[in-house]
């Protein structure tokens, strides 16, 4: 077993620098690496390229990095719900690359899997396909999309072990397993960290080989964006 546990968030973030490319797991605010984001938002690193399905809200998630103008470019599929984002984007301060959600997920997986490019029908005929190669398969046009990788991938799991194996809970899984594959250094934060051997090898979502550092997050706020309920 290769021990991936680090002692604290400081060790977990060792080596992060300005102008790097980071990936962040999560969908909306669900399953985002809260502790890593909070810590990054206090570091003096700027000019970041951030790959994340969404961009958080003004005072939580990637919104924290936006407020300090640490992000140069966002690569996302949906970036609503964020006034600071809108301001920086419209003023031209923030570069934004919008990608179909399925292509984003597959491009991260491809980056981790050593697949440099693949064809997908998503985005054909739209501005997403500008400059991309088009080829017909099964009578349908497809565009060639390339893999994404990152200097650091920050992911959040429910449980993890010291070997870096991860188990997610509910729809907080989302992009986390794919981005874990695509980070040169993948930093996983978990709600519960157990010794290697305690997790059932059959029930692990992300094998530890994809994770370079793992730590237990100090605190999880786990905000809900749209609290929809029915009365009893």
């Amino acid at each position: 077993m290769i021990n991936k546990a680090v002692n604290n968030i400081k060790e977990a973030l060792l080596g992060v620098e300005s102008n790097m490319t980071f990936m962040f797991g999560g969908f909306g605010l669900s399953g985002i690496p809260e502790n890593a984001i909070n810590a990054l938002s206090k570091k003096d690193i700027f000019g970041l390229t951030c790959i994340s399905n969404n961009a958080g809200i003004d005072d939580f998630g990637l919104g924290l990095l936006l407020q300090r103008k640490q992000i140069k470019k966002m690569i996302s599929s949906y970036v609503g719900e964020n006034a600071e984002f809108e301001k920086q984007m419209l003023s031209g301060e923030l570069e934004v690359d919008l990608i179909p959600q399925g292509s984003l997920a597959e491009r991260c997986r491809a980056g981790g899997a050593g697949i440099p490019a693949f064809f997908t029908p998503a985005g054909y005929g739209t501005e997403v396909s500008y400059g991309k190669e088009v080829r017909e398969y099964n009578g349908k046009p497809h565009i060639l999309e390339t893999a994404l990788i990152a200097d650091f991938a920050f992911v959040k799991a429910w449980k993890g072990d010291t070997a870096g194996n991860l188990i997610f809970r509910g729809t907080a899984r989302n992009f986390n397993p794919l981005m874990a594959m695509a980070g040169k250094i993948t930093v996983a934060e978990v709600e519960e960290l157990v010794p290697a051997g305690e997790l059932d090898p059959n029930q692990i979502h992300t094998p530890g080989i994809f994770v370079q550092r793992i730590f237990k997050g100090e605190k999880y706020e786990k905000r809900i964006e749209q609290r929809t309920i029915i009365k009893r």
Partner: protein
Amino acid sequence: MALDKKQIAQRIAQDLEHNTYVNLGIGIPTLVANYIPKGINVEFQSENGVLGMGPFPFEGEEDPDMINAGKQTITTLPGAVIFDSAISFAMIRGRHVQLTVLGAMEVSENGDISNWKIPGKMVKGMGGAMDLVASAENIIVAMMHTNRKGESKILKKCTLPITGVNCVKKVVTNLAVLEVTKNGFKLLERAPGISINEIKSATEADLIIEGEIPEMDV
């Protein structure tokens, strides 16, 4: 009388086929789940990673780890399954999800759809819409027939940046049910009490009108 949003959803629900997997977009499409006809069993997929979505949770039982693609707290039904975003779009792209219902700003007579971007306005992104419209065998658009200025959203050609080409199969609006055929929009049904001329005058695209056009049953 033109349909309200609930009735649009109700009409679309009549098109649900038994034992199929369905993805509902945000807005009117979400309401379709409330009108599933008796004897029809469908399973809802949400592209953030769940199949077998149930109703919203009871108050106090909301779980931040259990949301749908609209970021709303949800529950799951027996037989539900959770998966990552790559597998979710494998289901969609691989045509395992049979029907997608989504909203639109414009639909054109060759089945193009625009629903993600208005030039000059804040662009939020396409989310999963481009994957969904490029993939599903059957795509039904739920929308109002005209925009707030009273302009037709049923067009010869989309004017806004498009989300997908040649993909929409059917459009259900507050005024009509339209099928996208090789030769353009074919009028299938009218909203109760709405005349063919009213529909024609609200529609920029040409309409194929053959025989009697029945009223929707809503």
